[in-house]
């Protein structure tokens, strides 16, 4: 049996009287491509925010590779191996495309403040390593030609890809993608599906994604969880879940 990479049990959070997420359970295995779907306002992004420490859960446990995640800050959770993208793109707009990736290498390639002030040899060698590494990652997405332009000046689809590239640079075990295909046309979505599969294999990571585009979900996700009103409606193999009458009702109404 494969070991579960992410183990979430009974996760819950309420805002005031509203239970945004209630009794959420998921167990994602290493190397899996897992989908999280549901109608608008179902609590999908809230689950991501809980997993990445933006919100602290009221109930439940979360473990990554057996290590507890509850109570950790977002930056600590990143260091323990979860990286994410955002539904509304959050790039470092006034930094170059290359620097966006290099910031994400911050904890990976280190040198001291004194090395940067006095330009010690370690500064040059590590900066060189960073440049090479960031280029490698950018090449996966065909972004290397934009290396020196501001992130804000990239076309929309490229911005989404840069966000994924930046997340990958932190060398995560688990990558969370929040609506990666939002705002993309069918061609771009098809291309994105290939890219997601490719990075899963190339970087040997596990991916959990939120998506509304059913074609993408059906096309690449191996298993799914459907959320509705903060609770789990169904979960299991993609084809079974998508044909579940309960799920169809939640999406289309009676």
């Amino acid at each position, binding site marked *: 049996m494969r070991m579960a990479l992410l183990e979430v049990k009974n996760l819950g959070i309420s805002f005031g009287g509203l239970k945004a997420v209630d009794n959420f359970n998921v167990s994602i295995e290493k190397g899996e491509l897992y989908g999280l779907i549901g109608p608008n306002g179902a609590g999908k992004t809230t689950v991501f925010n809980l997993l990445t420490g933006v919100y602290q859960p009221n109930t439940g446990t979360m473990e990554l590779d057996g290590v507890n995640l509850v109570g950790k800050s*977002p*930056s600590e959770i*990143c260091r323990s191996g979860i990286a994410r993208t955002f539904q509304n793109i959050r790039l*470092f707009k006034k930094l170059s495309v290359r620097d966006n990736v290099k*910031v994400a290498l911050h*904890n990976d390639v280190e040198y001291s403040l004194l090395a940067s002030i006095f330009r010690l040899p370690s500064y040059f060698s590590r900066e060189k390593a960073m440049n090479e590494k960031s280029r490698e990652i950018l090449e996966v997405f065909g972004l290397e030609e934009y290396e020196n332009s501001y992130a804000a000046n990239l076309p929309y689809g490229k911005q989404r890809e840069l966000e994924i590239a930046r*997340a990958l640079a932190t060398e995560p075990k688990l990558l969370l993608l929040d609506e990666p295909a939002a705002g993309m046309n069918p061609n771009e979505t098809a291309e994105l599906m290939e890219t997601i599969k490719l990075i899963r294999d190339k970087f040997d990571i596990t991916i959990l994604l939120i998506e509304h585009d059913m074609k993408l979900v059906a096309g690449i996700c191996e298993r799914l969880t459907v959320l509705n009103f903060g609770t789990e409606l169904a979960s299991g193999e993609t084809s079974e879940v998508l044909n579940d009458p309960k799920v169809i009702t939640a999406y289309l109404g009676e």
Partner: protein
Amino acid sequence: MKWNKKVVVRVLAIVLSYVLITVLLRMGLLNRQYTALLVPIGVNIMLAVSLNLVTGFLGELSLGHAGFMSIGAYAGALFTLNVNMPSGISILLAMIIGGVAAAVFGFLIGVPVLRLRGDYLAIVTLAFGEIIKSVLNALSFTNGARGLSKIPSYTNYEHYTLVFVVAVITVLVISNIVDSRHGRAVCSVRDNYIAAESIGISVSRFKILAFVIGAFFAGVAGVIYAHNVGIIKPTTFDYNKSIEILVIVVLGGMGSIKGSIIAAVILTALPELLRGADDLRMLLYSIALIVMMLFNQSGIRERIKGRIESSRKQKAGE
């Protein structure tokens, strides 16, 4: 190699400006009024560049930079007034003491404002500056409202080399930090702190780092200022002084170190250049400020640049 070119340009700029100042002084081309400006220009460059680290690169509006300057000025002046050492050693130690004292306060102010952003943080820094002023006013060893006087003039225009070197060090240290992994982390906090956290950047650490380094150099600038004018009072470092530094940073461009330097030179010299206009002086200064801001911000500069380029291309085509 690209990097080498950058270093060559920097070294040239430093050497040329030093030679220029020396030549102007030695040949007696500057009258007293202008030689007296040399050190204040250096001080303002240091203040503007250090504030730019906080405001331009970290992206937090700080309205209390004069507070850090005053801590440095008082700490440094109290040191030189109370010790009996050769002037060279004395001023160097004073600068270190002033800088460290200001940095400690930068840390102290940095910690509570970690939870704040934007307008709220700006108000807290403003209050901080005013509190420092009031405390300096109330304490007996700072001599209250009368302030400190007879501070030895260790940094008058004759010591322009010392001030020049310290200003260059300030600029180099800050621009080196900005162009490093630490600087990128600081900029990432400015551009999107949620995303910065999500890639493992400890936002609090870099906020404090920027505040402490900014405060340190403001403190050193304060020491130079104190030993240049000889008299310091709490009111010298009020809110107007903070705004004055902020104006330099905004005019030079948020996040542009080169811009801060140029703006510091222009805005320090401008009031003196306008002295001939007597009563109209401050009016003209204000108008000049407005015009410069418009020129900088409304895209006039880009349009002029574009026109020059297109005419050049035309010429090349013919």
